[in-house]
């Protein structure tokens, strides 16, 4: 018996009903994540939020003191990867979200959801790793929580960290503050964390001398702010990569950006891994890098200050903010055409073609 499916009857008027359920792509940091926030979460949160733009952390003012407050959950798999583990990743991630608001990190919470069966030694080691990362950043882990769930309900270990930090006066980086004439600076080579994770992911394993770049950026931000307290934007390009971060900033600030492709530092093995899988290095996640958008006049001083610190040794100027094509980030190609640098849409899929 022939089963004929009439595509018109089934699919019309809307195409694939992706928005009925959450899919993996909603967590990947690109357009789908934005859509989830915009269409599902933000409207539901409306009663409890103050409507300010979505930054890495929030600013809460108490008795004239500006505190940055942030939370982040970490579900990376595997929980140990070249260059780190989920414990230090979680602490560094929250330290960095605070730092992107110009805040000096003060205190963190550490919450674990542990899958039954995780070896105790593993838990001990990851906790020690988290503690060490906090100490390096000059912050304290002051509170926490631990829950255990049955086998299969969590992928070995999920971690949540929340943090508070103090924002010095005169410092107010924010996604909507990029202005034409500003210079776009990246603190070092991109693509390391994402490639390190992919290299150990089941189905795609490959050998590469790449380690995750996870590290705290609090001291680097202090160095930037010392030279330019009025840094316009700070952003750490995690999921979704450099292009997603820049596109979001361009969109929120209503400005355009023009990037200089050869100036973007991409290590050889990252480039190779991306060629191999058919991925764009600009879409690959980073964990120990930041983008700083500063007034044109202080760019050189900021670069010098960054390069004086180990976390910023390879800082580079990668583009400028312009008034043209607001919301779009472009790059000049080798034949002289200008191409648009797009955001990641959903989950990054390795391709064959």
């Amino acid at each position, binding site marked *: 018996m022939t089963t004929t499916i009439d595509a018109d009857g089934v699919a019309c008027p809307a*195409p694939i009903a992706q928005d009925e359920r959450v899919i993996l792509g909603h967590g990947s940091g690109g357009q789908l994540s934005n859509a989830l926030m915009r269409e599902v979460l933000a409207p539901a949160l409306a009663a409890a939020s103050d409507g300010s733009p979505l930054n890495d952390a929030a600013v809460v003012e108490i008795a004239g003191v500006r505190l940055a407050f942030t939370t982040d959950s970490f579900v990376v798999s595997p929980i140990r990867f070249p260059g780190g583990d989920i414990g230090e990743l979680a602490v560094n991630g929250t330290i960095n979200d605070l730092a992107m608001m110009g805040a000096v990190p003060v205190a963190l919470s550490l919450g674990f959801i542990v899958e039954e069966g995780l070896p105790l030694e593993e838990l001990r080691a990851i906790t020690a790793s988290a503690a060490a990362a906090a100490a390096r950043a000059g912050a304290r882990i002051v509170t926490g929580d631990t829950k255990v769930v049955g086998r299969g309900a969590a992928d070995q270990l999920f971690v949540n960290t929340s943090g508070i930090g103090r924002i010095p006066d005169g410092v107010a980086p924010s996604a909507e503050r990029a202005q034409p004439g500003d210079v776009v600076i990246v603190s070092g080579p991109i693509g390391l964390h994402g490639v390190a994770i992919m290299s150990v992911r089941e*189905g795609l394993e490959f050998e590469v001398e790449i380690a995750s770049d996870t590290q705290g950026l609090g001291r680097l931000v202090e160095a930037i702010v010392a030279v330019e307290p009025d840094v316009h934007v700070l952003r750490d390009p995690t999921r979704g990569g450099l292009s997603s971060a820049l596109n979001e900033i361009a969109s929120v600030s209503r400005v355009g950006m023009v990037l200089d492709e050869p100036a973007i530092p991409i290590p050889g093995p990252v480039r190779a891994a991306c060629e191999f899988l058919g991925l764009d290095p600009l879409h690959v996640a980073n964990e120990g890098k930041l983008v700083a958008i500063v007034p044109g006049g202080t760019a050189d001083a900021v670069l010098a200050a960054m390069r004086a610190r180990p976390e910023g040794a390879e800082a580079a100027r990668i583009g400028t903010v312009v008034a043209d094509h607001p919301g779009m980030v472009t790059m000049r190609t080798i034949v002289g055409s200008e191409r648009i640098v797009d955001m990641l849409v959903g989950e990054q899929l390795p391709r064959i*073609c």
Partner: protein
Amino acid sequence: MKYLDEYRDPVLARKLLAEIHRITTRPWTLMEVCGGQTHTIVKQGIDEALPEGVRMIHGPGCPVCVTPLEQVDKALAIAARPDVIFTSYGDMLRVPGSSTDLLALKARGADVRIVYSPLDAVRIALANPDRQVVFFAVGFETTAPANAKAVAEAARRGIDNFSVLVSHVLVPPAMTALLDSPSNQVQAFLAAGHVCAIMGWTEYEPIAATYRVPIVVTGFEPLDLLEGILMAIRQLEECRHEVENQYVRAVRREGVPLAQQQVLEVFEVGPRKWRGIGEIPASGYQLRERFARFDAERKFDVEAIRTNEHPACIAGAILTGDKTPLDCAAYGTLCSPQRPLGAPMVSSEGTCAAFFAAGRGLERGGSFSNAVPLAPIEAGAESPAEVSR
């Protein structure tokens, strides 16, 4: 990376471009039949930098794009079964079937896994003897040797829980189908470099002679494409119609005979449906009868599934080069990479996705043009980020 970076040199690129401009005296229409080449052309803006009048039409060179809706529906039916581990190349996961796609099925709990090589699928079958492992064998002639080897290995090792869902297509029959079409405008072809690495270029010699079209076997890096385009235009300007090889570092006239032999041991040529084009005789591979036990269509009884294409999707016209995405009413509105109607928008190599990613035709209002510099958005307009979603 050696043998890649050298072919991205901007100075050499501009030299090639200048030479193309110097020798072009008339309008010409060229076609590349390879998704990877389309990707480089669009990403580097090569077609925008060519002389006025030289048009690149993007042909049906993306195996993901040309996989008929029907094969995707069969894949979905098989993957939905609880006893199946469904393995596939990454880019097939977001290709929409009639009502869903493999990625969504995975979200609902189906065991769908991305593999890098078809041999990985065979290993999964060995490691999971109590499950049925199915591999979605998609591709052009480039991938057929790998897919064939997986079947041959499964046969050699007596693995009985492994099967393949075949959706293989061949390039030369597609080219001749295009050339036979009354609306064909293509005057020269860039042939897919890696297809020809396997098959050689002897099959293209009768095509060049019969239809009097230059065919240049071309690589995938910017310099390769520019040189291939230059060689094709040179032939056109000089009224020649030969097969030439630009991709000399990887392609020989006879191809790789060992690979061709393995393919023909496992597969035979047969008719194949091409998405949006319909059935082209002798344009695909199917498993030979003696490998029938590895045919997933028979094993899971999905041969009877027949599917019609979505009416708003003009994938067929896109794939033959008759229309560009800018001619499609659904482009950028109903259809986008987030919500693709058809495969050319799903695969990052597909013409529509490549156009979308490059922002072509996404400026607000006005007429769409195939080669327009970035249009500034008027102040006070909605954020273009909203418009382009």
